[in-house]
């Protein structure tokens, strides 16, 4: 009841404010007059009585203020008052206000922008029902150093039947040719079991998805298409359901259209942007007959049963794995240490960008912090100019609490204004900003300025406002009244304490900037090293286009089924390519042969037998296999070390030959000579028993075709005339017209086979640049942050030294009058700045040592504690500090001793 009373009374006090004020006036006036009357009655002269009554009553205004306080009105009251006063103060110094608001706007805007990405990728659960139940299922063979090797069909069936999961879905897929429209198109498809969409839990916008109970071993010849394909390829046809499309020569019926904005939880942009889903049991053609150790399913996802956590599910999977190992000792040899790992799906989708994103968020947060410290510094300078104002207000009876809250309000006002400006800029620049971000970043389409992001921005605003409102407020809380009031018109308290605070702030700023700059420096050096690394192949003047040979479900109808069938097509393509203007060399390879242009997933553990022993069981089987035409090595500039390269004669009638790189040779024949060695590779269906023996004929130098950061991945090359590949890249070298070549190549390809799509035209230089896009992005971002930080730190030290100089004008005048040399004066000023810079650098170096170790995973070719970077950045920072101090030092020189002395 009391609470209700208080609320009512407060509300009345707030809304009936003018009435309450009037009442209070009348009431107090009545009191004083009544008392005066009494005094008169007691014999005090009337003239004296009124005055005496007032004096004895005490401060009327103070009593009123306390009455307002008692009503709980004062908080809002003083808040609006502070607010109005703050706005007035800020408008009085537009220059300062503009700089402060702009700094905050940039800080809050950038921090919020990065946070919105972090929010969408790391914090938001995946956009499917009950995302916490979704896991990726990964097979590892840690005994042979192989992780995530894919799962086999029998293993999938075991997991599906185990009761641990509601559903388990392997995901295959890749490219498929969509023919029938004006141009044959290549689209990304996913081959999934019929239970896939039941597992994901997303309904189509049109039609239906697959029937989870469908037991067809091969493809069901039903397709679900994405909203994008529906709208672009089929023009949003409302009668799309039931329509048949030809995909790699097979007719599929479209049964459903997924909603706009639906994306698969894939690891790569291609996996996430699947355009069509086809259902299959993975057990009929074109899939090979299921075998336990034939891990044809590159990845699998699962939804764990209700009531199970990932941990409990994992322990039950472990038990299942143990019993299967006992049951099938031949398929699961002990030394490979087979295990099945459940990974939250969110983690696999986000992948390794987590570290980069956290680095970026940390970096931008540091910039914001430095900006805050800078503004705190500016405010502190202003607070000293306002010292007299504060002192007078306090002398007139303002409580400290009141002064502090007023200064805090001003700080919050600034950060609020800056934050709003920042958010508005962000809102309008969002589209542009998202374009800067590399496409490979997962879940970009989910980035949005939502409530979480706004809440974050608000928190950032409040914290920043608190940070830079607090410094002057704390200072104002204990001014030396007498001193401040005595400073006739100087308008400055210049107390030692305040200066100390400002120095600490500048040192902080320097330390933080140094940390950021060292991070940027290390990333820049890594990037630079990667740019200038000798990749072992030549990207200049090379262009590649891709094509895809159809894989019909019935192998009998495949016109490129064997190497003997495919080779004529390849030879014809090469012959035609040579006739194009400017083209000097032509070669064809599979996608894995496109240097830096294929996914890391291509690096499959390839099952092979070397000299009678199974490689999988004895050695790490991580080998990258490429299939290339003879001219490939010369075209991309890979150098032969020993033996020979492929020739035109290495066709399907000749003995099988292979070229390996030095890493392969080192791995498998560390002591012996690899030339002439035999190995047996499983065929496309994993069938190894009657696979032909392949002879190693040549060794080439290692090349960084997988990633610029990796030196030696074992590689084996096979001849395209002896082994087929469907996913082809056509390479041309010469003085090329990069605009015309893709069109000309398409013409030539389609003159040979009009059903083939031609896509993905890129120069190898572009491919190489693109392979660094994520690194470039984080390097550029952190670099930008570091530059901003440097600028802010420079401004900060400039402000403090300027202030010091103006404080010491008098002293400098005396010194000069007494004959001090100009350079002595300059040295005196610079020494002060240098002291601050060195202190800041020392603190910063210590912090940077910790930070750089945390980001070791993002570095290449440079140690986290790289002395060159550390020293260089520290020197740069000190140089900037000296420069910033030199300007006020020059001003100090211009001090006219006469003027300075008269000034007092």
């Amino acid at each position: 009841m009391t609470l209700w009373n208080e609320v009512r009374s407060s509300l009345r006090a707030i809304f009936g404010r003018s009435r309450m004020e009037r009442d209070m006036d009348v009431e107090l006036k009545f009191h004083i007059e009544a008392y005066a009357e009494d005094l008169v009655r007691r014999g005090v002269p009337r003239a004296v009585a009124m005055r005496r009554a007032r004096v004895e009553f005490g401060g009327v205004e103070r009593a009123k203020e306390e009455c307002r306080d008692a009503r709980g009105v004062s908080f809002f009251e003083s808040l609006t008052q502070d607010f109005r006063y703050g706005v007035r103060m800020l408008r009085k110094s537009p220059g300062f206000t503009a700089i402060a608001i702009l700094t905050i706007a940039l800080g809050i805007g950038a921090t919020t922008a990065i946070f919105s990405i972090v929010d969408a990728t790391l914090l938001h659960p995946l956009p499917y029902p009950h995302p916490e139940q979704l896991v990726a299922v990964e097979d590892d063979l840690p005994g042979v150093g192989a992780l995530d090797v894919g799962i086999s069909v029998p293993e999938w069936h075991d997991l599906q039947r185990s009761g641990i999961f509601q559903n388990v879905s392997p995901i295959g897929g890749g490219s498929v040719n969509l023919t029938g429209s004006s141009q044959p198109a290549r689209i990304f498809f996913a081959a999934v079991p019929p239970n896939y969409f039941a597992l994901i839990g997303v309904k189509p916008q049109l039609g239906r998805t697959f029937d989870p109970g469908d037991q067809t071993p091969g493809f069901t010849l039903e397709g679900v298409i994405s909203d994008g394909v529906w709208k672009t390829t089929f023009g949003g046809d409302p009668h799309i359901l039931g329509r048949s499309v030809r995909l790699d020569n097979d007719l599929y019926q479209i049964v459903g259209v997924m909603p706009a904005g639906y994306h698969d939880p894939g690891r790569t942009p291609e996996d996430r942007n699947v355009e069509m889903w086809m259902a299959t049991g993975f057990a009929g053609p074109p899939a090979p007959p299921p075998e336990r150790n034939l891990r044809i399913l590159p990845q699998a996802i699962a939804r764990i049963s209700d009531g199970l956590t990932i941990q409990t599910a994992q322990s039950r999977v472990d038990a299942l794995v143990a019993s299967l190992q006992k049951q099938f000792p031949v398929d699961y040899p002990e030394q490979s240490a087979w295990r099945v790992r459940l990974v939250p799906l969110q983690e696999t989708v986000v992948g390794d960008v987590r570290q980069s994103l956290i680095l970026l968020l940390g970096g931008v947060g540091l910039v914001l912090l430095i900006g805050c410290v800078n503004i705190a510094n500016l405010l502190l300078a202003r607070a000293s100019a306002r010292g007299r104002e504060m002192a007078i207000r306090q002398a007139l009876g303002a409580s400290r609490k009141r002064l502090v809250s007023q200064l805090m309000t001003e700080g919050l006002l600034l950060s609020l204004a800056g934050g709003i400006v920042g958010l508005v800029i962000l809102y309008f620049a969002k589209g542009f900003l998202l374009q800067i971000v590399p496409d490979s970043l997962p879940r970009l389409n989910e980035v949005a300025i939502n409530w979480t992001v706004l809440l974050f921005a608000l928190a950032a605003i409040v914290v920043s406002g608190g940070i830079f409102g607090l410094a002057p407020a704390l200072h104002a809380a204990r001014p030396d009244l007498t001193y401040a009031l005595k400073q006739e018109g100087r308008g400055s308290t210049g107390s030692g304490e305040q200066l100390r605070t400002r120095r600490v702030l500048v040192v902080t700023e320097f330390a933080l900037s140094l940390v950021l700059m060292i991070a940027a420096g290390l990333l820049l050096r890594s990037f630079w090293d990667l740019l200038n690394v000798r990749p072992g192949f030549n990207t200049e003047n090379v262009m590649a286009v891709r094509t895809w040979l159809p894989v019909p479900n019935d192998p009998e109808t495949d016109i490129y089924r064997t190497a003997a069938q495919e080779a004529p097509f390849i030879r014809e393509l090469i012959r035609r390519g040579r006739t194009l203007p400017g083209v000097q060399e032509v070669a064809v390879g599979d996608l894995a042969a496109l240097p830096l242009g294929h996914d890391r997933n291509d690096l499959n553990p390839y099952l092979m037998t070397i000299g009678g022993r199974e490689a999988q069981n004895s050695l790490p089987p991580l080998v990258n296999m490429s299939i290339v035409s003879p001219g490939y090595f010369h075209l991309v500039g890979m150098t032969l070390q020993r033996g020979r390269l492929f020739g035109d004669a290495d066709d399907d009638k000749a003995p099988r030959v292979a070229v390996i790189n030095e890493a392969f040779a080192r791995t498998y024949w560390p002591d012996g000579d690899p030339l002439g060695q035999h190995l047996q590779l499983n065929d496309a269906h994993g069938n190894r028993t009657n696979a032909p023996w392949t002879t190693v004929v040549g060794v080439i130098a290692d090349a960084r075709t997988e990633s610029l950061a990796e030196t030696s991945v074992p590689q084996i090359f096979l001849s395209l005339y002896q082994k087929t590949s469907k996913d082809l890249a056509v390479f041309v070298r010469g003085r090329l017209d990069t605009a015309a070549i893709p069109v000309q190549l398409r013409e030539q390809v389609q003159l040979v086979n009009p059903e083939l799509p031609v896509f993905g035209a890129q120069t190898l230089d572009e491919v190489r640049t693109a392979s660094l896009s994520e690194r470039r992005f984080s390097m550029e971002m952190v670099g930008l942050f570091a530059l901003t930080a440097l600028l802010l730190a420079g401004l900060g030290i400039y402000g403090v030294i300027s202030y010091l100089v103006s404080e010491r004008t008098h002293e400098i005048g005396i010194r000069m009058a007494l004959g001090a040399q100009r350079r002595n004066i300059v040295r005196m000023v610079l020494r002060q700045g240098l002291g601050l810079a060195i202190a800041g650098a020392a603190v910063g170096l210590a912090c940077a040592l910790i930070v750089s170790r945390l980001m070791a995973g993002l570095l290449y070719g440079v140690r986290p504690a790289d002395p060159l970077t550390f020293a260089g950045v520290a020197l740069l920072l000190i140089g900037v500090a000296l420069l910033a101090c030199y300007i006020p030092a020059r001003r100090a020189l211009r001090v006219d001793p006469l003027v300075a002395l008269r000034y007092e």
Partner: protein
Amino acid sequence: MLLLLDNLGDWDYIPSQSRRGGYTVGKQLDLLQGTLDMLILKAVSLGPLHGYGVLLRIEQISGDRLEIQQGSLYPALYRLEHQGWIASEWGESENNRRAKFYRLTAAGRRRLQLEAEKWNRMSDVIAGILGATSEEV
């Protein structure tokens, strides 16, 4: 010595100091809030009073031994009204002027009783302690 009491009934002694030069003699006891609240409640429990009347009544009952700082009276009144222990309405004063009269509410009456009991208990204890002789210890 000035007797300072706060809301909780804790005691504190601070060295006396002349608070108002000249006009009153420092022999009178000076009260601060807390006890002041209780005394106001008591004063208005005897009948509605305006602010000045509260002051007079307390001083009168105490036989002019208590002096209330006039400025502190009104914040106390506002606080008590805010808490709902007294209520106010406008009326006519004895010399026919508009004045705000305060009266005790039901909640205020309970509060007064509580405060009075607490006070009595406390003063008993204190008196007991102060009255102790060496034989009793």
